[in-house]
């Protein structure tokens, strides 16, 4: 079953073509990694899926229903079912960890406070964040903040989780803890679309890797194939540069 079906999506920022007729299917429990240079359209593609940015042509389906369908217009059903985590965490600095996590369940989805807090505490404990419920984000390390951001995205129990370069802003020693919980999510069967520069991680966690350039998916294959024996010359070039930079 296809969870997400991106069909011929085109997007311009002004005159700039950022997504050029992109097609991509993501099956249930599948983990798809998007790789490519900055400006290739990876992050924009994620933002189109949960309508953070509008796109100009094409359709995106969630469980075979267009995300522009009326069923997704009310009650924020789309945002409940598709969660996203950002590179810069974007936690609310004036709220403690618990309030950050329970805000959407309580205010958007009408979960009563006691229930929302119980679920939040369970999630925190699951991801090794016991004891941080009352802390404010600025008191946490970047790695902890990013894990809280992932918990916040999971608190609405989404069917699909999108991760936008979630380790790019972290110090190297903090990346491991974040990648570990993403692996755990994969083991639990979470459907994920992951934009990443961590090729080792992509190889490890992805069922499929897509290489984007100039708003197009140039090559799409299982990680062992795409990262070891890429066919497209541009993919080969990109990976060569990554290897030279010592990142693979």
């Amino acid at each position, binding site marked *: 079953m296809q969870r997400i079906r991106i069909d011929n999506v085109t997007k311009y920022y002004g005159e700039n073509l950022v997504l050029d007729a992109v097609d991509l299917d993501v099956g249930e429990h599948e983990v798809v990694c998007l790789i490519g240079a900055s400006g290739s359209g990876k992050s924009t593609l994620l933002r189109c899926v*949960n309508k*953070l940015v509008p796109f100009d042509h094409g359709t995106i389906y969630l469980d075979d229903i267009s995300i522009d369908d009326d069923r997704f217009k009310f009650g*924020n059903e*789309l*945002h*409940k079912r598709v*969660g*996203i985590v*950002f590179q*810069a965490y*974007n*936690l*609310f*600095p*004036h709220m403690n960890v618990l309030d950050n996590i329970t*805000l*959407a369940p309580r*205010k*958007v*989805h009408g979960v009563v406070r006691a229930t929302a807090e119980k679920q939040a505490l369970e999630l925190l404990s699951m991801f090794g964040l016991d004891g941080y419920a009352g802390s404010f984000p*600025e008191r946490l390390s970047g790695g902890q903040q990013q894990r809280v951001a992932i918990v*916040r*995205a999971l608190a*609405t129990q989404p069917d699909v989780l999108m991760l936008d370069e979630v380790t790019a802003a972290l110090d190297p020693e903090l990346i491991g803890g974040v990648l570990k919980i993403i692996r755990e999510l994969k083991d639990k069967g979470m459907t994920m679309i992951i934009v990443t520069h961590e090729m080792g991680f992509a190889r490890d966690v992805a069922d499929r890797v897509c290489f984007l350039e100039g708003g197009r998916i140039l090559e799409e294959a299982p990680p062992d194939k795409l990262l070891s024996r890429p066919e497209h010359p541009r993919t080969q070039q990109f990976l060569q540069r990554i290897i030279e930079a010592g990142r693979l």
Partner: protein
Amino acid sequence: MSIESRAPAPPAPRSKASFRERFIPFLISAVSVTVVFGLAARVVTSAQHWPRIKLQFFNLEAIQAAFPTVFRGFLTNMTVWVIALVAIAIWALVLAIFRSLNGPVLAPLKVFSILYIDLIRGIPSLLLVLLFGFGIPALQIPGLPRTGLFWGGVAMVMGYSAYAAEVYRSGMEAVHDGQRAAAKALGLSQWQTMRYAIIPQAVRNVLPALLNLAVALQKDVALLSVIGVRDAVREAQIYTARTFNYSSLIAAALLFLAATIPMARLTDYVARKDQERRFQRTV
């Protein structure tokens, strides 16, 4: 617990500057301040007209005589100030929210807010006070209050709200875009995003600037004296008109200073705390 049973306090880190090194600069500044101000006082009080000036402005007896009525007027000033502060904090926030609205349905509110801020900010406060304080009571509309006190207060609220709304707006714009993206991604509506994500951060951002406005308003409430409100300035003028002695105005000035200087210090303190908070976050 006796003092003896406590563990000895760790030795205080030795200051590099010795007592002598710290004491001498202090002594020099104390002496120089005393000398300069002393000389200035000497020059002023030995001036030819000083006795007349003293009699007219710093006449202790006159200050004492005028004080009770001036003080009663001052309480009116401070009451208007406090009520206006609350009203401005709310009305300005409403204006700022209107101004930030997007979408065609809400466009009238946005346009209203822009027009309001542009118009009101362009009119002198004194003119607003005269217009409202004299103008509206003169209409004698049944059901509306007719006191200058009420309408003068309304004029102050209207005027200051335009400034405060712009302050709020700058605070809202300073909230990082990522916060809006996060709120939207979590499914919060435009209003919920404002209510839970943007406004709390914006208010914290602009608190020092708002307090500055509060200090300015603390003095500007004296404008109500021109429409006959018996505030501190009005009472002082009444005394002056009767006795031809201006010491009552000095009494009023002292009362305003007693209120504004602590407010200014509070503003400094809040601004410093705010600076520290921002600094911590960037480090």
